[in-house]
């Protein structure tokens, strides 16, 4: 959704098109992931508190630098987790996530190139911090799933792979893990803004197409 908001606002027409294409990719990816969850026996969320997004996606981005940081850092963190699942021992995911990784490679190239061109240091620091929070603390759920073989990487590996991919060390971040929400994978409260929420739930469309 946040990528899509930039499909007429990026610095060039090519970047507009790329933003739209990456947004479409990610909608496809979420459909595959939700479908897989259902197959694996996890019921769909029922209310807005079930949107477990990182704080970075709570509000629309106001600066291209925020897009670039999300694209280069957060998207890479999500991709690494998908890689960990695709190389884990859950058969449904092993077979289904390969195409996703091919598409995500282009998101990574896009983010990496723009990161070289854009002064996005503070946005990148924020994206880094939220990526680390999203991956979670050592010795918790991700490390347990790794021990069971369902994830191919544990927390430390995910962090160091992310450093390799982004091409910089994670900035020092003082994360208060006591406040970490295990389901929503963040330490700060809050959620998606109302307007975006209504779009996600189809309420915005209904307003323009009232039923007879």
């Amino acid at each position, binding site marked *: 959704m946040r990528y899509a908001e930039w499909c007429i606002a990026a610095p*060039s027409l090519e970047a507009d098109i790329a933003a739209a294409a990456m947004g479409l990719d990610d909608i496809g990816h979420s459909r595959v992931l939700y479908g897989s969850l259902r197959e694996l026996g996890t019921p769909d969320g029922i209310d807005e508190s079930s949107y477990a997004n990182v704080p970075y996606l709570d509000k629309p981005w106001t600066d291209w630098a925020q897009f670039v940081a999300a694209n280069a850092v957060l998207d890479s963190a999500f991709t690494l987790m998908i890689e960990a699942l695709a190389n884990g021992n859950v058969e449904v995911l092993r077979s289904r996530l390969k195409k996703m990784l091919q598409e995500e490679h*282009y998101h990574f190239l896009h983010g990496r190139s723009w990161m*070289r061109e854009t002064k996005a240091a503070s946005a990148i620091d924020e994206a880094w911090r939220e990526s680390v929070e999203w991956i979670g603390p050592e010795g918790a759920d991700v490390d347990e799933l790794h021990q069971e073989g369902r994830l191919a990487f544990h927390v430390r590996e995910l962090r160091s792979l992310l450093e390799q991919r982004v091409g910089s060390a994670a900035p020092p971040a003082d994360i208060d893990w006591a406040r970490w929400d295990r389901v929503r994978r963040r330490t700060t409260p809050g959620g998606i803004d109302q307007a975006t929420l209504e779009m996600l739930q189809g309420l915005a469309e209904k307003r323009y197409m009232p039923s007879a």
Partner: protein
Amino acid sequence: MAYSRVHAHVREYDVFARKARVEPLRQVGSVVAPDDDLAMAYARATYDEERWVEMMIVPRDAVIRLWAPGESES
């Protein structure tokens, strides 16, 4: 070039693709980008509407032209 407002230095790349192994590659378009990474991302985002089995990009300045339309071969 309008594009240089965004990036100080850019290269033009031609995009080639084919739908089947038996087909020859054909030029499907071009992209302008500051580096190979972004050129690949743009080529894929802009020209992926067909089911290509192969896609490649070539920096236009790497192409050696022997002759152009209207010029004689020798």
